């Protein structure tokens, strides 16, 4: 009959890890659940055990040290604006957070969940019935990619709006799993393989996100979407210019992972743009066409450079 599904609210990170380790079967951490629950509704997420980590207080703190701003992974997107340091120094992060989903969703959605939001594709974010009718693609254990008409690689879109900004800000994340605690650059967790887009160990929990405070910087964020709210990205760009003249470009929505280009003041801007474009893997799996999204990278980056007074 209908399978026994389980839900447990974890009381601490240790508790959550223990539950995950013991689960044996399929489990899923639930932060806000705004991504997971929709994927479950569509039959894309079949985890039997939901481990709800949204009540673990220690994951919600936002604090700072001399060198870093530390945002707990379960901090709500809507709550970020209440923090003085973010409001003052990282308004770009607020812009990105405010570009996620809808205002009501942002009251539940967390920043950690946003970093790990599942990759998307017009052929994948569909009901089980739909995917059966279409013929299953790679991401649904099928033989080939439907969007590209036969590719053997999946380039479902990496869509996290906050991740591109955080990467441009050189953020790192603190990860806990049975092996212990490690701190790694955010971009390192993304594989570029649309079927398995992240390489965290299965039970790993992101505890926090750290943004360097000392590097005085200005940044520009842009997001392409049909409506001015609600929609996932078709292209996000974040460009950060640090006082030391370093420039970091991060793109979302145009590859299965964030696309990153580093440069410095004085670099040929057009070269930076073509470098960015050449690193993307765009396929027709979005409301906007492949060529349009590609074309918009240039427009968005040029506009960002203008704001940063680089051009």
């Amino acid at each position: 009959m209908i399978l026994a599904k389980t839900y447990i609210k974890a009381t601490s990170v240790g508790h959550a890890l223990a539950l995950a380790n013991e689960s044996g079967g399929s489990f899923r951490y639930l932060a806000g659940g705004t991504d997971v629950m929709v994927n479950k509704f569509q039959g894309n997420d079949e985890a039997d055990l939901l481990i709800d980590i949204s009540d673990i207080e220690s994951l919600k703190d936002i604090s700072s040290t001399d060198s870093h701003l530390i945002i707990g992974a379960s901090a709500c997107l809507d709550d970020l604006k209440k923090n003085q340091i973010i409001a003052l120094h990282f308004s770009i992060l607020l812009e990105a957070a405010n570009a996620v989903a809808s205002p009501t969703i942002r009251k539940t959605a967390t920043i950690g969940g946003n970093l790990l939001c599942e990759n998307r594709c017009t052929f994948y974010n569909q009901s089980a019935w739909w995917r059966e009718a279409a013929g299953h693609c790679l991401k649904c254990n099928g033989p080939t990619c439907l969007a590209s008409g036969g590719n053997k690689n999946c380039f479902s879109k990496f869509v996290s709006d906050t991740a591109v900004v955080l990467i441009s800000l050189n953020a790192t994340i603190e990860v806990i799993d049975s092996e212990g605690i490690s701190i790694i650059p955010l971009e390192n967790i993304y594989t570029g393989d649309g079927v398995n887009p992240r390489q965290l160990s299965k039970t790993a929990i992101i505890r926090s996100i750290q943004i360097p405070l000392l590097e005085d910087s200005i940044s520009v964020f842009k997001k392409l979407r049909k409506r001015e709210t609600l929609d996932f990205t078709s292209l996000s760009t974040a460009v950060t210019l640090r006082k030391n003249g370093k420039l970091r470009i991060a793109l979302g929505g145009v590859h299965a992972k964030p696309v990153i280009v580093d440069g410095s003041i004085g670099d040929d801007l057009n070269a930076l743009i073509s470098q960015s474009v050449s690193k993307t893997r765009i396929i027709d799996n979005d409301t906007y066409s492949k060529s349009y999204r590609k074309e918009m990278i240039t427009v968005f980056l040029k506009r960002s450079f203008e704001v940063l007074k680089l051009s």
Partner: protein
Amino acid sequence: MQQISLKINGRQYHLLVDDHEMLSHVIREKVGLTGTKVGCEQGSCGACTVLMNGKAVLSCITPAMRCDNAEITTIEALAKDGKLHKLQEKFVEKGAIQCGFCTPGMVMTALSLTPTLTKEKGEDSFLFQIKEGLSGNLCRCTGYKKIIEAVVEYASEYTDKEQINEIEVITKQTLKGAVGVPRPYIEAEKKVRGAAEYADDIMAKNALHCKFLRSIHSHALIEDIDFQDALNLQGVHYIATGKELPVKFGVLPISQDETAIAIEKVRYIGEIVAAVAADTEEIAVAACKLIKVKYKPIKAFLSIDDSLNDVGENEKIHTYGKFNNNIHKKAELRFGDQPQGISEADVTGKMSFEFDGINHGFTEPHAATASWDENGLTIITATQVPHYLHRALAKVMEVPLSSVRVVKPYLGGGFGGKSDPFPHEIIVAHLARKTGRPIKVRLSREEVFLTNHGRHPSRMTVEMGISKDGILKVLDADIAIDGGAYGSFGVVTSYYNGVLLQAPYKLNNFGFRTYRVYTNKPQCGAMRGHGAVNSRFAVESLIDDLAFQIKMDPCELRMNNFLDSNTLTVGQYRITSNGSRESLEKVMEQSEWKKRIGKLKKGKGIGVACGFFISGSALPIIWNELPQSVVHLKLDFDGRVLITSGSSDIGQGSDTMLAIIVSEVLGIGLDKIFVLAADTLLTPVDFGSYSSRVTFMVGNAAKDAAENLKKEIIEALAKQQDINSEELNFTDNRIFSYDKKIDLSWLEVVDILTANRGAVSVSGKYISPKLGGDFKGAGAGLSPSYSFGAVVAEVDVDTETGYVKVTNIWGAHDCGKAINPLAVEGQLEGSWHMGLGQAVSEQMKYYKGLLFNNNFLDYKIPTSLDTPDIHANIIETIDPEGPFGAKEAGEGAIHPVIPAIANAVFNAVGVRITKLPINVEDILAKMKENRLLSEKMNG
């Protein structure tokens, strides 16, 4: 299963819930608080918003288990001690509630939003915060305008206490009066409380639940269906397949081409192949997965071209028809002499257009509950046309008409999408008969999109000619529309695409040819502005282009060509009142057209377009001698007038309209009037809510009934004393003569009337006059009266991204007389908002016949942030035959807005839009072409 305790609206509950059950399900199904609505189940419409520990959450994606020990507040908790919450009052007062399905979620969102708002950054920022704050809550009816007004006022009061008194005075003013006084719907309070029951809110005792197995092939023969495993599943009661329901149905008598469940072959991906009745929805879903169907796919026809061609050896979608292709309907009408018109023209233009299909996008998914008893079948269902469903059910169930009762509860938006008899309605009737239990079904949002019946994908070529001095000489249109797998309203749609081009401009040489083809896709049907929206777009675009060519102001050109009042069109439509001129003048003035046209900088543009529409079809769908509408009134000893009418209030406010009309005629307050509508057992036949017929036809029937009641009263009084009926006034709950010889209260009159007689029932009716010519096709688009209107739109086009931001919509609509101006504004604002969607973002996209965007995230209805300032102007021309002069206001307004936006884009960047929705890539490409061209010309 675990037990949780949660406090809902202050009451403690201990509930057993499934571990992965959603909060919305618990609130609605287990606690029975159905004020919280479910519109998408995927976090993309906001209908299910509730407060959890004071914070707004989407209950459809919140696990119930998470709410253990939490406090939940739903819409039902807001009104206290019998008084609405101030925010609810604002929603009612401002007319922010139409169908009311989005209302509970909207109110809860606004409530949690208010404390976060600040006026520190000025009024514009305040307004933006509100629009942004509501942007996750979709409304398909209102265009958000009145919702935002309500929230702005409430939130201002919240921060700014002084204003409260003043506002209360306005409240009182707006709540009295009859015809012409703006007022909220009579049921607005019930809706804003979450107390109005919609089809899915009806919880029949002992009901079984129904789910469908749907085809995964576009066009395939069904070789075998094996449902034994499914039937063996515990909790499954019955599984139906197509052969049990062999009788064909369809809304038009000439297109009875659909069976409730596919028999022998499937014609689109999503067609129902089997239906399961089970103890719970979950079991029914599991059973569907166990059904094994063997298909043999055959060639699918997915495009208009495919279907126009000879099919060769392949199998046609439907077998009937003389030719070996998939053409469903061909129609052609010609008036005057088009070649002559072309030769008379100094300038001609010919353009081709393409339109994607669009969906109604009503927020309430279809739902129905059917049951049988000694009197036959009763079905409570979300329908716009109880009458046609009544007939279809009797036909397919093979029972007498007298054994079918169709009841429409409150309805969460229709726009044409609930106006066919649907397979799911027939199937639950069948399953209920087979199992002897009530059967309930509700469609998921995906299923709603698959059911479709939306606007036809179309393409057309239109040619027009004009003289140098700007007189239209000729119009010729060649149209093909993609009907999908079944007929639906398609024959009417085919004609409307052509015939509804013969106004609002005078045309002596006019003709069209139209084809409707079957394709293996979900069927298309009627949608707001039925039939003529796309062809109107083409004509208004072409007129704009001709104006550009002869260097004439496009407003002036239109003014030069409008038909007059009291005239005939070339195809013999009788035009009575005509407010085209007034409408256009109004929007020109409001948009400062003359000052601004031609003077805006690149990227900014304004555009204009006009339109017209029928106020109901003069001919019924099913040929018969019944009046178009009958309304009954019953007056009893208590002084209360009961109106019974078969008409369907689908959120457009028709119940209120009936009450107002009766109130006006009898001079009694609305508190004495009660409306009972849309129940085919209790109410006299009305044909339904389609073709914008209700205010005109049912309104007239109600007026007739009220006048008949008045006559009865006068007769009763005349028996007592000598009176001159001319001199009697019915006002303010009194009946009096000028000389005050007679001066009676309503109740005194009622006593006189009912003495020795008891309750008095009277009837009123509306029969359309005989209209039109006597050629084949003359009946299409005939209406006793037509509405007219104009729109000016303003856009801001990003010349590097192609993004079109519509920044203003000024619209005017001649509705004859606004029986309820608040409701008329609501219809206009909603129409323009819906048109905006078709113009810039909405489209149904297919992958090999499989609908891509069957949810509210990917089907892009404009949110509050995407919707510009809408300025609605009501133009009143007092139609000679409309009730108190009223004509339609529900559909016509959508016609001009779409081409006005496209024409504004032309004005902004010189790009002529020939495809909808407007595609940013086309804009960029054409801008490049234009640039190349001008460089060439200059260089």
